[in-house]
């Protein structure tokens, strides 16, 4: 019975469709120094980038798998992954020029429609590279640069060279090394001094091919007093074999700027999602990670913020949903390196049908960081007896003036809540959907409305066929 219902959940994944593979260049599966060199050569990269890639590759080979996190990590077969796949010869600026199959996919995902209605710019990545890219003219005329990362490297090599690997060194962890070795695509975004970009800009990442490895690399620099709201979404087809998504995101918030980075991760249940996200916040700047993890087989992701300048602020709001066969190992890391810095972390997770969600957090206050404040709240909701939730908080407080609050709760959906909602005409599934949406509400209210509605719909779908 339980097995059948779990199957329903997987079948409910609306984005599990795939198109015929239309690669113009497809590497054989497996990773070697040659593969790394070939990617760099194909992209006609400057020498220094090739060198970083090679160093990172060797580092990746040397580094052991993390011993913490999840046993599922050990099941990754790096040799079966395709590390580069080009599906379109160039990045178009008009949807009509995008190959039809690919355009249809993004139509089904609602991207062109969203772009027209409420986005300031869009990058659409399919497999290894961006197939579509645009930015509103008014933003461009204010000097905002929004490109896919490959084009960013070509057009602004000096900016990329300055910041690439400056926040996440390639030696940071095994998957950051892997990404640095084989990265392709991702976003490059620069907002000039004092420019406030009010409409969100979005990147959408789609894996279509089997056994695909997607390794986008994103670099966002907000110059002094600038403001940006960046949103990313991602989906993939449901295959019986696994795909690997391993991204690196680096944010640089210069003095007085604000970067908000929102993610709705909805990979299919055959994707390993191993992502390093980190930002550096200079004086009086703010970095906010709004991070939603609904899909994937295994996600390991701990958005981090280094509060380097006095008065900087960090905000991490995350939700994770772990269903059948899923492990969401997520969390947040905040390092208070300067005085008068503040941080808020809110983490909410739901486990259902044997799913496992873990919160892994790190809060550090260095000795010279006087008068810091931090509040951490972790709430877990467990929907059945087979499911699991764990919390692994780490705190290193080196300054006694720090004001730290930490609250954690684990709850179960109560029979009283279900009875109350059902007595108002809601089926058990609908009632569970209401409880789950309500639990995630502190997160969804931070999202642009369109995303909030979509997320609630997704969660309601997840509840269907899942009770019995």
């Amino acid at each position, binding site marked *: 019975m339980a097995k059948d219902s779990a199957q329903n959940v997987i079948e409910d994944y609306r984005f599990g469709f795939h198109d015929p593979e239309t690669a113009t260049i497809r590497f054989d599966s497996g990773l070697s120094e040659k593969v790394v060199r070939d990617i760099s050569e194909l992209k006609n990269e400057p020498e220094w980038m090739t060198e970083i890639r090679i160093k990172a590759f060797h580092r990746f080979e040397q580094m052991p798998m993390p011993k913490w996190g999840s046993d599922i990590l050990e099941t990754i077969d790096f040799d079966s992954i395709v590390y580069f796949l080009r599906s379109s010869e160039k990045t178009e600026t008009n949807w009509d020029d995008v190959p039809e199959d690919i355009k249809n996919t993004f139509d089904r995902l609602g991207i062109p429609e969203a772009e027209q209605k409420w986005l300031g710019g869009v990058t659409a990545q399919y497999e290894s590279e961006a197939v579509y890219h645009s930015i509103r003219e008014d933003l461009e005329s204010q000097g905002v640069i929004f490109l896919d990362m490959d084009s960013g490297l070509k057009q602004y090599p000096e900016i990329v060279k300055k910041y690439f690997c400056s926040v996440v060194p390639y030696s940071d962890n095994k998957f950051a090394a892997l990404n640095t070795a084989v990265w392709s695509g991702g976003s490059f975004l620069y907002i000039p001094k004092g420019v406030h970009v009010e409409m969100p800009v979005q990147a959408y990442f789609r894996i279509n091919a089997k056994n695909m490895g997607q390794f986008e690399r994103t670099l966002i620099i907000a110059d002094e007093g600038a403001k940006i709201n960046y949103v990313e979404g991602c989906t993939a087809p449901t295959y019986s074999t696994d795909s690997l998504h391993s991204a690196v995101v680096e944010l640089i918030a210069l003095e007085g700027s604000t970067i908000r980075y929102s993610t709705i991760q909805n990979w299919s249940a055959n994707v390993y999602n191993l992502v390093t996200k980190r930002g550096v916040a200079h004086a009086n700047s703010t970095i906010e990670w709004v991070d939603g993890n609904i899909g994937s087989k295994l996600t390991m992701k701990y958005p981090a913020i280094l509060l380097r300048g006095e008065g900087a602020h960090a905000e991490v709001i995350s939700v994770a949903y772990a269903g059948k066969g899923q492990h969401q190992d997520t969390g947040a890391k905040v390092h208070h390196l300067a005085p008068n810095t503040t941080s808020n972390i809110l983490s909410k997770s739901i486990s259902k049908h044997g799913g496992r969600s873990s919160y892994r957090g790190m809060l550090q206050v260095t000795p010279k960081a006087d008068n810091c404040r931090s509040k951490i709240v972790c709430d877990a909701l467990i929907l059945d007896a087979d499911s699991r939730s764990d919390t692994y908080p780490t705190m290193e407080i080196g300054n006694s003036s720090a004001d730290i609050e930490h609250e954690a709760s684990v709850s179960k959906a109560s029979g009283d809540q279900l009875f109350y909602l059902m007595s108002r005409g809601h089926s058990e599934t*609908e009632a569970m959907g209401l409880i789950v949406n309500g639990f995630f509400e502190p997160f969804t209210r931070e999202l642009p409305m369109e995303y909030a509605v979509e997320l609630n719909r997704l969660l309601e779908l997840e509840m269907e066929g899942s009770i019995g």
Partner: protein
Amino acid sequence: MGEEVLRVENLHVSVDGVEIIKGLNLVINKGEVHAIMGRNGAGKSTLANAIMGHPAYEISAGTIHYLGRPLEDLQVFERARAGMFLSFQYPVVIPGVQVGTFLRKSVKAVRGDDSPSPRQFRVELKETMSLLDMDPSFLGRYVNDGFSGGEKKRLEILQMLLLQPKLALLDETDSGLDIDALKVIADGINSVTNAAGCLVITHYQRLLDHVKPDFVHVMIDGVIVKTGGPGLAGQLEEKGYEWLDSVV
């Protein structure tokens, strides 16, 4: 009197293996208000929850018919959609779910094809809330989260008026209310009594000063020991329940 709404025959209900209701009979017709009075632990709330279908309340014998059909095969939400409503003694907190959203979805679930259009719904909601002296800011709060006792009961009655039940079960709706709130809530209840059968569970006579019962039943130890007219409530208020203990 109107058509039969509820028929309870020889009902036995157990919770965790302990029998609480021990052979109860009750018939409620449309347009009738029945009050059930009794001390704590007499089984009053158990009766309401069992009729609504709470899974923890096991019906070990007897039958409940609603509008002529047996209830046993209907799930809780199906009972609600068929027009049954329970006003909870202890309304449950649903964190993060806004009252406005909850009411809209509940009306749609219960009234189905007869649901008002979004615009009609807003009008209906506004009028009903003003009848119950509720501020529109209620709609943005989370269901019962941080509500005072009186606010919770108002929200229960608001739901009842919007869901337009054919059978209203009101479990201690008067508890924790000051006199002004009591009047407002009584007005709310009175506005549905023509179209519905009502079962009002209470400890005290004071709600019955405002909601006139057609029948008053006294429940002791899981059975109805005495049934009378509205005057019986006054007698209980004066004399307590001791004089009835000998009846058991």
